[in-house]
């Protein structure tokens, strides 16, 4: 992979954000809304339950972690959709840009954008509701890493779906995180789920994060093994989703879908 073409893909996204406040606002707005909403919910629950349960850490922390994952996934997908919306495929893919460089550019853009969101999230949650993510200690690093890797995998998968099914399928990819959230146990232990949902949870890396996060908040030791497995699983899923994207891209080149990409031609 060459750095200059990747920088070109990133520069395009940077120019778009710099020239458009409506693109920058969502990086902060949804995080802020979630913090305020869930911050007050947890404060209310704490006032009812007293100090028996740490709602701030378990609920607000979980919400913000999930929000971080969602931003990563949407960062990749939105960067891809910018090329769909501006019908830029012919311009981009008729250049020396390799498909791996294009994906790397989308992912790097998402990393940069979500780091901004992460910073805002940490500052607001700490300043307004006294949630200290750093109380999770060094475990915070693998937690964020798993969510980050799985966010990239899901973002690449969503982009592959839109490339294959056409621009009109865009609506299908936005709710993907919400669709997965019941399975990964963001707000409740996996033991709450029926057996078939637990089986699905095993292939979703975030389920290991939220399981371990609850263990830490409850003052228990968390097991490193499953979390390491979550990281390996997320890496494998990135590889699988990238392979799927490349296959869809080759299909689009073979069938002429890429050259005539629009809602009418995709089928």
């Amino acid at each position, binding site marked *: 992979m*060459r750095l*200059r*073409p990747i*920088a*070109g*893909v990133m*520069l*395009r996204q940077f*120019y*778009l954000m710099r*020239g*458009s406040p409506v693109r920058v606002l969502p990086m902060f707005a949804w995080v802020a809304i979630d913090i305020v909403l869930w911050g007050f919910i947890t404060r209310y629950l704490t006032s009812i339950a007293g100090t028996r349960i740490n709602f701030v850490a378990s609920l607000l922390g979980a919400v913000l972690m999930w929000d971080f994952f969602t931003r990563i996934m949407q960062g990749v997908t939105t960067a891809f959709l910018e090329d769909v919306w*501006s*019908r*830029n*495929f*012919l*311009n*981009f*893919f*008729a*250049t*020396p*840009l*390799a498909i791996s460089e294009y994906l790397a550019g989308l992912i790097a853009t998402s990393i940069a954008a979500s780091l901004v969101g992460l910073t805002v999230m940490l500052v607001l949650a700490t300043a307004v509701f006294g949630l200290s993510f750093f109380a999770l200690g060094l475990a915070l690093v693998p937690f964020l890493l798993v969510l980050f890797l799985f966010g990239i995998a899901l973002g690449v998968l969503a982009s592959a779906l839109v490339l294959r099914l056409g621009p009109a399928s865009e609506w299908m990819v936005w709710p993907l995180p919400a669709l997965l959230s019941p399975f990964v146990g963001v707000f409740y232990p996996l033991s709450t789920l029926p057996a078939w949902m637990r089986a699905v949870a095993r292939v979703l890396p975030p389920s290991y994060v939220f399981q371990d996060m609850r263990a830490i908040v409850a003052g228990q030791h968390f097991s490193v093994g499953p979390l390491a497995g979550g990281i390996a699983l997320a890496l494998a899923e990135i590889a699988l989703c990238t392979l799927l994207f490349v296959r869809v891209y*080759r299909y689009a*080149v*073979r*069938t*002429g879908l*890429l*050259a005539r990409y629009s809602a009418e031609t995709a089928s």
Partner: protein
Amino acid sequence: MQTVLDASELCKSYGDLVAVDHVTFSVASGEIVGLLGPNGAGKTTTINMLLGVLAPTSGSIRIAGCDLARERSRALERTNFAAVYAALPGNLTVAQNLRVFGLIYGIRDLGARVRALLAEFDLERLRDTKCGVLSSGEQTRVSLAKAMLNRPQLLLLDEPTASLDPSAAQAMRAHIRDVAHRGGCGILWTSHNMYEVEQVCDRVLFLSRGRILLKGDPRKLPAEHGARTLEELFIRLAREPLNASVQ
């Protein structure tokens, strides 16, 4: 002259529909070749295959000695294109688009190259204007500036002057001829303007129903086939391609 494009036995089928049928041609360095034909003849399909965004069903494409199927990036580093149906992203300014594509093509000393192209295509006053609000003629000039970014050895132009007024079109034709003849760039040019084709092209290929029916010097072909003008020959071939003499 060195061959910059060598397309051999190109075929593209969609199920039973044959869009391009065993098309073979070449373009030499410094040569402008016109690709002519009625709507649906297979011109854009051929160009899309040359750009690597459409895979041929069979056949091969070599650009400046590089096999497009096996050395895609190397081949496309030496190629560029401008087409009326592939406007640059309208939400970036002229200069931003040139910088983005300059990086993608791996251009060294990009700032100087962008400044030179803005001057060359009279785009300096539009450098900070978003492409989406430009007139179609201005957008064409930006597309052509983008197409020159990497000093291509092969330039594919799909109706490059379709949106330009006669004066601007004449200036652009002169400019592109200069690029070909002085810069040594081989150009494949599609157009429905037969006057333009006679003015610009060294050689033409008549495509109909995916096959090359005629090829030769656009200034000599009409007389060789009993037509008064290239346009008359074009119309005859478009209406009765199977009766036309095939060379």
